[in-house]
């Protein structure tokens, strides 16, 4: 079981690096689908067999929302705005990956001294979750396209979700549902906003949008 957990955790980390490295929007959205897979999978592998039906339901729900609904929303926004590639980012792609490595190191650094109940299961779980969150933040900070910003937020929420899945042993249901709802609503709203912004200004480059400030 812990082997499978570690595999999925590793997959999570790899998807994060993919996100940092790519410039194509379609790839970015696809990678979030992979992240959804990895998340729901290791949620299942972390729990004891036999899996309670509630857990299965939750995993499937996660998969559906994060793997189907949200990417569909994002792809639709992508189609409406006609964007294909990321505009010149603030931090270049190679530099982003290097920063990602530093962040991974920091995540481990933070969690090594802490002894939590989960560290027995897997020493990589919590650092990976934190790393995912930080990757999300990184994407928000370094990219200019509004859609990518939304994806960054999504990834950040994935990291928080992973935390929740790992630590909330007692009442995972309520926490997870809450986070799920939060993400859904946020991305929904953001998708609409991006569409409206693009319609109004014909542009979703946040650099240009910053010129709206007084």
């Amino acid at each position, binding site marked *: 079981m812990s082997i499978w957990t570690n595999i999925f955790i590793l997959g999570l980390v790899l998807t994060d690096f993919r996100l940092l490295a790519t410039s194509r929007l379609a790839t970015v959205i696809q990678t979030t689908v992979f992240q959804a897979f990895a998340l729901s999978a290791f949620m299942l592998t972390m729990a004891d067999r036999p899996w309670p039906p509630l857990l299965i339901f939750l995993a499937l729900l996660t998969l559906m929302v994060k793997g189907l609904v949200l990417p569909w929303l994002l792809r639709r926004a992508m189609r409406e705005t006609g964007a294909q590639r990321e505009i010149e980012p*603030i931090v270049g792609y190679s530099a982003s990956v290097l920063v990602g490595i530093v962040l991974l190191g*920091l995540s481990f*650094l*933070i*969690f090594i*001294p*802490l002894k939590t109940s989960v560290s027995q299961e897997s020493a990589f779980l919590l650092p990976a979750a*934190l790393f995912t969150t*930080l990757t999300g*933040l*990184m994407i*928000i*900070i*370094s*990219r*200019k396209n509004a859609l990518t*910003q939304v994806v960054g937020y999504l990834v950040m929420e994935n990291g928080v979700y992973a935390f929740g899945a790992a630590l909330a042993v007692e009442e995972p249901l309520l926490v997870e549902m809450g986070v799920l709802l939060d993400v859904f609503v946020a991305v929904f709203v953001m998708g609409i906003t991006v569409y409206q912004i693009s319609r109004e200004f014909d542009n979703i480059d*946040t*650099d240009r949008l*910053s*010129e*709206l*400030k007084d």
Partner: protein
Amino acid sequence: MIMDLMLASLAVLLFGSAVCVFAGGSGKSASLMGAITSVTGAILAMGAAGTILWTGKESSLHVPWQVPFGSFYIAVDPLSAFFIITISLVCALAAIYGTAYMDIYRGKKNLGAAWCFFNLLFASMLLVVLSRNGILFLIAWEGMSLSSFFLVMFEHEKAEVREAGWVYLIAAHVGQACLMFLFILLGGQNASLDFDKFTTPVGAAAALFILALAGFGAKAGFVPMHVWLPDAHPAAPSHVSAVMSGVMIKTGIYGLVRIVLLIGAPAQWWGWTLLIIGAVSGIMGVLFALAQHDIKRLLAYHSVENIGIICMGLGLWLLGVSINNPVLATLGLMGGLLHVLNHALFKSLLFFGAGSVAHASGTRNMDLLGGLLKRMPQTSLTFAIGAAAICGLPPLNGFISEFLIYLGAFGIVAKAGTLGSPAVGGLIAMASLGLIGGLAAACFAKVFGIVFLGEPRSENSARAHEVPRPMLFAMTTLAALCIIIGLAGPLAIKLVTPVARQLIGDANVSETSAMACGILWKISLAGGVLIIIAGVFWGLRSILLARRVNSTGPTWDCGYLAPNNRMQYTASSFAWPVIGMFQWLVRPKLNVRFTKGLFPQHAEISSHTDDIFRRNLFAPIFKLISELAQRIHRLQEGRNQLYVLYIAITILILLLVKVR
């Protein structure tokens, strides 16, 4: 029973505000709903409060709450009851007035929101005087400030209204910050913010008093914290101005009295401070009022003046308590509190009148009005009564409360002997009141004369018409109350005596109260005799004139060939000699453009008076803050990413630090 009534009142008001939001944005139903709930809430509240004042007891309700340090602790004691009656009376009448006043906005603006905020304002004011817990008090206070802010911003499409609202918001919150400090200091020792668990830390009484003065003074409008008043009160719709000027600033007075009650034995300098602040506010307020030519701004400055008078009464109270002179304390307190009620009555009346004038003629500039008495007879009559009342002329109610303060001041002046004793305090009070009385009479002779008498100075006033009945009803009720209280002074004493008993102590108050009642009976008698004599002379005149030949004709024009209405005195010209005397204080600006050469050309003259506190005290302070803020502004690039970077760095640092 009492508490049930109070809770019912609050419930009705909150229900009303919720309903008004949904009752239709611009319909008559919103006005009707809003007014009905206000009046109902007022009646319920007055019933509860009246019972408390009658029996002199107290009634309370204490329900613990989830909020840390907060609890739903409300109580009605005579002090609260007195203010509840004042608040309810004015708000109910303002609601009635408002139904007709807001009609001109029907269809153009969201009336439902306005009525929602009106009911919320009423409810939060009631809650302010009911709360006995710091958190509840602050919530109610904030609710009061916010709902009045939204009401002030009703006509937000005008730039001056927006600026007025902005200044008001800042002033209200600066005051609130002081209040928060105050409550924290008071509740610190017992770690509870319930009023009855407040203890004064040793040696901190002075700081607490200063904080209370700053916090509540900003709301009440003590000089120099009054600068928001002359902008905010004219900007709001007239019935809201009446409520704000008549009762909302009095909640500041209530807070001050309540806190002094909680802090404990006052030092002598507290009384002196209040006296001086009161005298300065009174004189400065009426001087600035004299210089205005916008009616509502003038009335707002008069509120500052009357708050000064109330403050002087309270100063005499504290002085009396600190030197153990219960007569002085009682008279000062009774005078100050009665003036709270009286001012609420006649200031609301005057604001209603000003609102009617603005409604009928479309302008607030007195120099464009005139001759309205013939066109709006009932409004003029009630305004005249309000004007006479605010000047303190007998036999109306303003005289009664000012007389009580005079009596207290003179009493101590006559008894004491030396300089530096409280006699000087009495003298300050007396001289200030005398000066204020003279200035106020000048000002209101000007207002009434320029606006209602003579000939119309412009098309606006020529086209004016009488206002709808609800507005007239509200004004007439208030005028009648002014006359009744003026002629029945002892009844008014009965209203304030329970409060005096609660604040000073039973034995001392009863004797003074009885003495004051005796004197006031004589004054009522004098007032009655005055009216009778006037009646006799009027009868004599009518009889004599009936047998003579009478005729009418134009006013004597000294032989001028072509007199016109613009040759009448204007508001600015009437006040100019007096303002000239006080020029060094008021600093009016005169813009003159004379004709040059031999033949008549265009010439003009206009005057404008800035508030010197706003210009010389607050404007530089805020400019300094603005400049400092500009420097910090550079941190704000406008880029989203930069802000998130700040957040990320902070999170990382926090994590690292915490873990290490």
